[in-house]
C-alpha cells in the first residue's frame, strides 16, 4: 500500500471517528472548564459532561448511516457491533454521572477531575469496542485501566479506597504485562498484529499449537482481567468494595462490557473461521479455545455465586454476583454462533439495567443509613418501600426470573447453548443450577428487607426518598420489567449488532 493511500485512508477515516473526536474535545473542554470554574460551582461540570455526552450520542447514532468500514489502516472498525457497544458505554456513563451527582460519598470533593476522568474512561471503552489491531487493543485496554486506577482511588483519604486502587493498579499492570507477552508470542507466530491477518495466517498454516496455546492463555489473562472472570477475578471484590459506589457500578458494566467486545472480536476474528455470513462457525483446529472459555465460564459462574453466599456486605455481594454474571455472558461466546453473540449482547444490555439498578439502591441506602451490611438492611421495606420494591425487581432480574429482563437475557443465552447441541447441555445445567444458588443469596437481601423486623434501636420511621432518586429508579426499573414482557425491539437491536466486520 502506497504511503499516499495510507494517508488518504487516515484522512477519510476521520469522518468515521467523529464520536471519539467529539469525546476528546469534550475532555479537553472539561479540563479547561475545571480550571476556570470555581470549585463550588462544580455542578456545571456534570452538566457539561451530560451535554457533551448527548452530542456524542447523536454522533454515534449517525454512524449507523455511514455504514461499516475499517478505519485508520485497519486499526479500528466502525460496524454495528462497535456502535452497539458505544451506545451501551455512553448510556452507562450518563447514568453514572447521574448517580454520582446523587452520591453523598462524592459530595464535598472536587468533582471536576472526576467527571473528566470518567469521560476519558469512556473514550478508552469506545476504542476497545472498535479495536481490530493488537496495538489499539492494548492501548485501549491500558487507557481504560489507568483511568480506572485513578477513579477507584478517588476517595484518596479513605483507606479502603486507596487500598483498592493499589491492588487494582498492581493487578492491572501485571495482567497487561502477561497479555502483552502473549501478544508478542502471537506476533512471533504470525508476523502480524492485525487480527484479521492473524486469523488468515493461523487458518492458512499449521502453527505450533503449544506456543499458540500459551499465547492465547496469556492474552486471555488480559481480557479475563477486564471482564473479571475466574481466575483473573481476584481484584474485583476488593476493588468493588473499596471504590466509590458509582465507580463500582461503572466498573461492573463499562469495562466488563468492553472486555466482552474485545473477546468476541478477537476470538471470533483471529481464532475462528467467522465470515460474517454463516450462523454458526468453527474454532481453528489447532486450538480448542471454546473449551477453555467454557471451563472458565462454568468456573466463573460457580465461584462467583458460591462465594457471594457467604458475604454480608451488599456491595461485595454484588461484586461477586457481577463475577458470576460475567460467567453467564461468556456462555454466548462459547457456542460460536450468531445466536450466541446475540445472546451475549442482549444480556449485557439487560445486565446494564439490573446491575446499575441494584447498585443504585445500595447507593441510596448507603447514603441514608450509612451502611452496606445486609444486617443493617433489615426492615427497610417498611421504611422505604419504593427502593425496596425496586431492589426486589432488580434482584429477581439478576436471578433470572420472569417476568423480568434478566430471565429473557438468560433465556437467550441458554437457548444458544441448547441450540449448539448436546455437547453443551452440561454447561446449560451448570448455568441454571447456578441461578438457583444465586437466588439463595439475592433472597438473603430480600429477606432482610422484607421479612425481618427492624433491628432494635433503629427508628422505624419512614425514610425520605427524594423524587430524584425515585425517577432514577424508575428509569432503571421500568425497563427491567418491560423488557421482560416485550423485548422484540431490544432483540432486534441486538440481532442487528451481531455483525462485526468480517474482513477488511
Amino acid at each position: 500500500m502506497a504511503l499516499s493511500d495510507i494517508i488518504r485512508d487516515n484522512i477519510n477515516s476521520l469522518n468515521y471517528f467523529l464520536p471519539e473526536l467529539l469525546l476528546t474535545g469534550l475532555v479537553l473542554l472539561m479540563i479547561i472548564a475545571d480550571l476556570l470554574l470555581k470549585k463550588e460551582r462544580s455542578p456545571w461540570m456534570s452538566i457539561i459532561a451530560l451535554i457533551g455526552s448527548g452530542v456524542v450520542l447523536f454522533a454515534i447514532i449517525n454512524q449507523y448511516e455511514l455504514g461499516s468500514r475499517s478505519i485508520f489502516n485497519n486499526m479500528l472498525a466502525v460496524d454495528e457491533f462497535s456502535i452497539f457497544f458505544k451506545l451501551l458505554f455512553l448510556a452507562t456513563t450518563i447514568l453514572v454521572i447521574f448517580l454520582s451527582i446523587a452520591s453523598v460519598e462524592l459530595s464535598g470533593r472536587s468533582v471536576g477531575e472526576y467527571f473528566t476522568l470518567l469521560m476519558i474512561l469512556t473514550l478508552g471503552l469506545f476504542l476497545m469496542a472498535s479495536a481490530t489491531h493488537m496495538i489499539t487493543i492494548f492501548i485501549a485496554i491500558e487507557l481504560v485501566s489507568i483511568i480506572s486506577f485513578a477513579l477507584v482511588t478517588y476517595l484518596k483519604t479513605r483507606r479502603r479506597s486507596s487500598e483498592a486502587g493499589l491492588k487494582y493498579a498492581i493487578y492491572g499492570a501485571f495482567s497487561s504485562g502477561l497479555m502483552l507477552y502473549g501478544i508478542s508470542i502471537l506476533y512471533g507466530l504470525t508476523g502480524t498484529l492485525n487480527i484479521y491477518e492473524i486469523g488468515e495466517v493461523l487458518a492458512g498454516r499449521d502453527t505450533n499449537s503449544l506456543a499458540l496455546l500459551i499465547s492465547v492463555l496469556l492474552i486471555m489473562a488480559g481480557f479475563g482481567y477486564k471482564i473479571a472472570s475466574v481466575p483473573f477475578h481476584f481484584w474485583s471484590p476488593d476493588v468493588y468494595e473499596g471504590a466509590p459506589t458509582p465507580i463500582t457500578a461503572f466498573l461492573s458494566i463499562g469495562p466488563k462490557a468492553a472486555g466482552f467486545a474485545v473477546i468476541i472480536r478477537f476470538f471470533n476474528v483471529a481464532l475462528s473461521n467467522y465470515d460474517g455470513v454463516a450462523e454458526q462457525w468453527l474454532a481453528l483446529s489447532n486450538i480448542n479455545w471454546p473449551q477453555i472459555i467454557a471451563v472458565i465460564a462454568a468456573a466463573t459462574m460457580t465461584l462467583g455465586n458460591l462465594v457471594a453466599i457467604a458475604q454480608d456486605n451488599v456491595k461485595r455481594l454484588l461484586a461477586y454476583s457481577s463475577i458470576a454474571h460475567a460467567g453467564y455472558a461468556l456462555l454466548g461466546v462459547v457456542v460460536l454462533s450468531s445466536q450466541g453473540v446475540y445472546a451475549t449482547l442482549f444480556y449485557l444490555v439487560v445486565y446494564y439495567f439490573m446491575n446499575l439498578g441494584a447498585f443504585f439502591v445500595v447507593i441510596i441506602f448507603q447514603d441514608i443509613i450509612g451502611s452496606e451490611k445486609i444486617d443493617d438492611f433489615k426492615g427497610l421495606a417498611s421504611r422505604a418501600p419504593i427502593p425496596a420494591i425496586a431492589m426486589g425487581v432488580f434482584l429477581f432480574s439478576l436471578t433470572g426470573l420472569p417476568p423480568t429482563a434478566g430471565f429473557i437475557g438468560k433465556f437467550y443465552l441458554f437457548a444458544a447453548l441448547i441450540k449448539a447441541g448436546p455437547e453443551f447441555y452440561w454447561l446449560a445445567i451448570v448455568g441454571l443450577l447456578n441461578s438457583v444458588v444465586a437466588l439463595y443469596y439475592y433472597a438473603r437481601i430480600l429477606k432482610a428487607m422484607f421479612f425481618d423486623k427492624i433491628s432494635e434501636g433503629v427508628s422505624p420511621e419512614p425514610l425520605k426518598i427524594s423524587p430524584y432518586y425515585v425517577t432514577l429508579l424508575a428509569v432503571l426499573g421500568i425497563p427491567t420489567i418491560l423488557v421482560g414482557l416485550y423485548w422484540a425491539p431490544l432483540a432486534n437491536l441486538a440481532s442487528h449488532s451481531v455483525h462485526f466486520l468480517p474482513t477488511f
Partner: protein
Amino acid sequence: MSNVLSWITFLPIIGALLIMFVPKSNKSLVKIIAALFTGLQLVLAIWIYMNFDQSTSQIQFREQYHWIPSFNIEYFMGIDGLSVPMVLLTAFLSFICIFASWKIDKSVKGYFAMFLLLDTGMMGVFCSLDFFLFYIFWEVMLLPMYFLIGIWGSPSRVEANGAVRGGPYAAIKFFLYTLFGSIFMLIAMLVLYFNVQDPVTGGHTFNMLHLMDQANHSGVLLNFDLRLWLYAALFLGFAIKVPVFPFHTWLPDAHVEAPTAVSVILAGVLLKMGTYGLLRISFPILPDAMRWHYFAYGLAILGLINILYGAFCAMAQKDLKKLVAYSSISHMGIVLLGMSGLTAMGMNGAVMQMFNHGTGTAMLFLLVGVIYDRAHHRQIDGFGGLAVRMPIYAAVVAIAFFAGLGLPGFSSFISEAFSFLGAFGSEMFDLRLITIISTFGIIITAAYFLWTFQRMFLGELNPKYAELPEINGRELFTLIPVAVLVVLLGVYPAPLLNLMQSSLNELVEVVKTAGPSSSTLLGLF
C-alpha cells in the same frame, strides 16, 4: 367474549394495579376491590363453563397472537377439558380465599396485590398453550408466593435444636425447590424448541400443539435415550410441584408457615400444576418416554409411595396443619397412580381427584385457620372435646375429614375410587399389585383423620377452651360453598366428569399410541 381467557387471566392484575392507587388507610376498599375482581373472574369462569363445548376434545376459546416473532414465541391461550376444571377451581378458590384473608391487617395493599398477582399466574398456567408462555406464568407465581409466605406467614423463630424456622425459611425453601425443578423444565423446553418444526412455517416453535405432534419432531428428538432424559427433566420440574416423594419436604414447611388463604391456594391449586404439567406437557409430547416401562411403573410406584408415605407421616404429626399438608402428599399420590395406568377411567379419576383434592383440602386448611385464629396454636393434643363447645365447627370439620378420608357421598371418594379402578384395570401395564398396596393408604387415612378428630373434638372438653367462640358467619361463608361442592360432586360427579372426559379420553388414546413413527426407536427398549 372472544378474549375471555385473557380477561380471566389478567383481571386480577388490573385489580392489583387499582389496589396500588388506593390510599393506604382505606383497607376495606382494598379488600372490596380484590373481592370484586376475583368475583368477576369467577363469573367469567362460570361463563366459560356454560359455553364450553363438552363434546369435543378440541382446544376452545383459542387466542393466538405473535409475541416475539424472531423467536416464534406466541401468545397462545386456549383450554380443553383438562384445563377447564383447573380454571374453575382456581377462580373458585381465589374468590373464597379473598374472604379467608379478610382479617389480614399487615400491609393490606401489599397482601392483596400479591394475591391477585398470584391469581394471574395460576390462571395463566392453566390457560397457556405456548410452552414459553406457560413457563413465564409458572415462574411468575413464585414471586408473590415467596412474599406471601415470607411476609404474612408466621414469623421467624428458633427451634429447640437451634434451627431457624418460620415463614421466611419456608418461603425461600419453597422458592429454591421450585426454581430448582423449573430449570430442568427450561432446558427440556429449549431442547424441544430447537428440535421441533412448525409444520406451517418450518421454524422452531413453542406451540404445544405442534410439540405434541410427533411428526414435527426432528434432530436429537429422534434419539430415544435423549427423549427419556427430556422426560426425566420435565418430570423433575413437575414432580417438585406435586410434590412427589422425595421432593416433597418443602411442602409441609410452606403449608404450615403460610397464612391460611395462601395454604389453601398452595394446596388447592399449586400442587395441581405439577400433575397438570405432566398431563399437558410430558405425556402428550413424549408419549413413548412415558410408556417406557421404568417410567410408567416408576410413576405408579411413586404414586404408591406418596400415598402410603404421606399417610404415615400425617399420622405422626402433632401440628394439625402439618397433618393436612401431609395428607395432601398422600392424596396427590392417588392422582399419580390414577394417571399412570393410561386408562380413561384412571385418567378421569386422576383429574377429578385434582379438582376434588383442591376443594377438599381447601376446606381443611380453612378450618385449620379458623381454630388457629381462636386458640393461636395448632397442636392436636392441645385441644379436646371441642365438639361440645363448637358443634357447628365440629360438624364442618367432620364433613371435611370424612371427605378427606374418601367416604362415599363426598367428592374425593369418587375420584379416588376411579383412580384406583383405572390403575388396576390398566391394559398397558400390570399395576394390580401396586394398586392393591396403595389402597391400604385409605385405611391409614381413615386412621389419622379419625384419630385427629377424636383428639381434638371428642372426649372431655379441655377447660382452657370453655369460652372458645363458635365459627362465625364470614368463616362459614367461605366454607359452605366448598362443602356444597364437595357433597354435590360426591353424589353426582357427572357435571365435572363430562366437562373433562372428551379431552382426557383423547389424551389417553394419544399417549397410548403416539410416538415416533420410526420403529427402530422402539427397538431400543
